[in-house]
């Protein structure tokens, strides 16, 4: 089990992950943009790191900043919640290369399911019935 998890999301999504971690006795790190400094997820987490300006493209979507925050807080894993970087295969790969567990599907699974044509071919190969068209 993990000792410390960084939650790469905000608001209700982050709050739910932090609550679950608390139940499991896992320490949590919240990340936030300047505009979310007073958010509940920031107050609930054991540690909180400001990662950028209000725009999510300058904060929650910046892989480099999330990873830097993970490095300085020395976490074992990152939980992306949903939305933001949760379906970003590249992010999952970067986590892997930094020895941080990405809590979610493998980059391979994400790559093979993000494209409809590839997904269909995969389903066909596995013998799953698919509608034509």
């Amino acid at each position, binding site marked *: 089990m993990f000792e410390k998890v960084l939650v790469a999301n905000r608001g209700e999504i982050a709050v739910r992950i932090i609550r679950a971690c608390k139940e499991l006795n896992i320490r949590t790190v919240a990340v936030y943009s*300047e505009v979310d400094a007073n958010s509940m997820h920031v107050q609930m987490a054991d540690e909180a790191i400001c990662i950028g300006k209000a725009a999510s493209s300058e*904060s929650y979507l910046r892989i480099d900043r999330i990873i830097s925050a993970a490095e300085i807080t020395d976490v074992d894993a990152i939980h992306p919640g949903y939305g933001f970087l949760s379906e970003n295969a590249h992010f999952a790969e970067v986590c892997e290369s930094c020895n941080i567990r990405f809590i979610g599907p493998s980059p391979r699974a994400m790559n093979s399911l993000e494209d409809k044509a590839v997904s269909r071919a995969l389903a066909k190969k596995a013998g799953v019935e698919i509608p034509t068209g």
Partner: protein
Amino acid sequence: MELKDIKAIIDLMKKNSITEFELEEKDSKLRLKRGINGGSPAPQSDDSFQMPSLPTIAPSISAATPPTTASVIANTGEIDIKSPMIGTFYRSPSPESASYVEVGTEVNSETVVCIIEAMKVMNEIKAEVKGVITQVLIENGKPVEFGQPLFKIRPV
């Protein structure tokens, strides 16, 4: 109400992240407001702010608005150099070499004041203003977050 009372309120507001505070007494009315996002509102000067006995209160109100942009002039005239990224703060280019700047060092906008290491990349941070370093706020090797003040500088 005295100046120190207002200062105490401002401290409490900061501590508890309160952005607006209003107090009405018999003969006076006080309204304090802190900036939340990017903007640092000007000291309140509308009619609701009536403190005839304390005309010098305005500077302490402006001090209560947190510096939010890259560098904001506090009431002392000093500017914060803030961290543009998350990482580890280093005062010198290598452990053996001398610090980039010390208190009293004169800098211009291009002077490198420190390094912030993020994801094994050393990023040189420039002063971005001309002035004199008056305070170093972070210890060498400590982690810093986005927007955290690193140095205080007196612009010239």
